[in-house]
């Protein structure tokens, strides 16, 4: 399974990861139009800043993930083959229980849809949008278990 690793010593806090993630998870996939869409597309990566420190974090796909155990509706599941944590928007009831238990704060609240939004590692792309568009490679992909 892929995991995105953040390197805070290299990150300059430009926020392009959030921009490209938002675009990738928009309807139009167009950098200008995406920001005018309703409902607003949501970045699943978050730039964490406390100057001079900055780094970007998204779902870590934990083993024994607290969000999966806590999920009230069964929307959050583990893909047995890849170990990836999948979120089924149609089953999500927006109870925010996963938000309460995720140590990383990696689950974002999509208030317009009353569901959570999480990183899917951009399955359809060769490299996740945040990684591919990080100008100084502060985000890299590492292959970890299963």
């Amino acid at each position, binding site marked *: 399974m892929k995991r995105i690793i953040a390197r805070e010593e290299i990150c300059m806090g430009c926020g392009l990861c959030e921009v490209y993630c938002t675009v990738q998870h928009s309807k139009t996939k167009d950098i200008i139009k995406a920001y005018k869409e309703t409902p607003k597309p949501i970045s699943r990566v978050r730039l964490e800043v406390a100057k001079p420190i900055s780094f970007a974090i998204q779902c870590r796909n934990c083993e024994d993930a607290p969000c999966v155990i806590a999920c009230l509706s*069964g929307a959050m599941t583990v893909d047995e083959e890849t170990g990836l944590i999948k979120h089924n928007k149609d089953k999500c009831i927006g109870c925010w*229980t996963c938000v309460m238990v995720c*140590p990383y704060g990696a689950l974002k609240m999509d208030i317009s849809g009353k569901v959570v939004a999480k990183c899917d590692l951009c399955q359809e792309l060769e490299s996740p949008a945040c990684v591919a568009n990080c100008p100084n490679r502060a985000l890299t992909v590492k292959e970890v278990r299963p």
Partner: protein
Amino acid sequence: MPKYVIIGASAAGIGAVEAIRDVDPVGTIAVISEELCPHYSRPMISDFVSGQVSFPEMMCREDDFWRKNDVQELLGRKAMTIDFPKKRVTLDNGERVIYEELLIATGGKPFCPRIEGADKDGVFTFTTISDAERLAEKLENSKSIVVIGAGLIGVSVTEALVKRGLKVTLVELQDKILSLLLDANGSDIMEDVMRRAGVTIVAGQSVQKIIGNPKNDQAVGGVVLTKGNQIACDAVIVAIGVVPRTDLVTGTELKLNRGIIVDNFMKTNLPDVYASGDVAEAWDFTLTQNRLLPLWPLAMSQGKVAGYNMAGKKTEYAGGTNMSSLKYFGIPVVSIGITNPKDPTTFEILTKHEPEKNLYKKIVLKDNIVVGIILVNEIERAGTLFHLMKNRVNVKKFKRELISEAFGLAVLPASLRKTMCQGYIR
């Protein structure tokens, strides 16, 4: 003869099956449940009553969950007695099920105080799908409802009723609603948004009597409050809380307090007998004692711990605490741990209170360790705060940041930050 027998097939039972199958793909499992289709999400009952979801949409696991996990389904069956020395469960049809390892996960049942008139038609509780179905049918021709109890369940059912266009009076014995989760500032925000949504809140009172309808005394027509005033209604919903369903084991050699007493491996005092979920008294890491905590995520987690131990993979329960996230009336709320200490002088309390924005944050610290969290209307960082709390991280150097809008991973100590950037922490 099944190797594993599980009584109860809600969160804890489901968690146990998943854990057992994780380590033992072949050992036979039998699950006993009084419900025919038990793998639904109980917390979603309010969404069912509001009409937002149908019963099939409430399934928290795949339709073929039991079959897929090769579970012998004894559904619609009630366990009547357990013979612990003979390791045998007797069902309501006389069938006997022998076990090697037993999990008791019988859950909770609604607590109904003795109220005169509570036997009338139109008094409901709110914990199973059959309760909810009967209630939903009654609501078809109801206009006004009295809900008794303004805890998590009472507030959730109130929202469901409001969504259906009903007039609701919420009666709470304590002076404030959600008193086990919030303090006065937090409750005031919720009371305010609920009143604006049309809910009548009667706090500091209880229902002393349920009275009949003038046309039919056997049907609910209203309630009389403790101070004597009457409220007319078509139905009463009792949402005071749940108590453990221990009937099956009361008077046996199994050690009980209010619930079944378990150790941190979910083991009871009897060999090869485990208990999990709302029926068990498990470890609370905040209060550092065992207690009842009837919460879905904790039941799931305890069920998993029991399942692993039953299947021979020694696993310790990390403990839980009183923790809930709420989504009602458009205001997200998180409450964890000791949120309203009785003796506040022995704690350090940080707050941020902007009632005009419905915003409230409160962090309760003891010796620089987070022991309580209230977040109203800004909850996205709740999980990180909970992580600090659960792992007893000393927050001395950055405690001022905890209630700030800018709180996030970047303010954490370098060592913790590094682990988080790399990936995986438990």
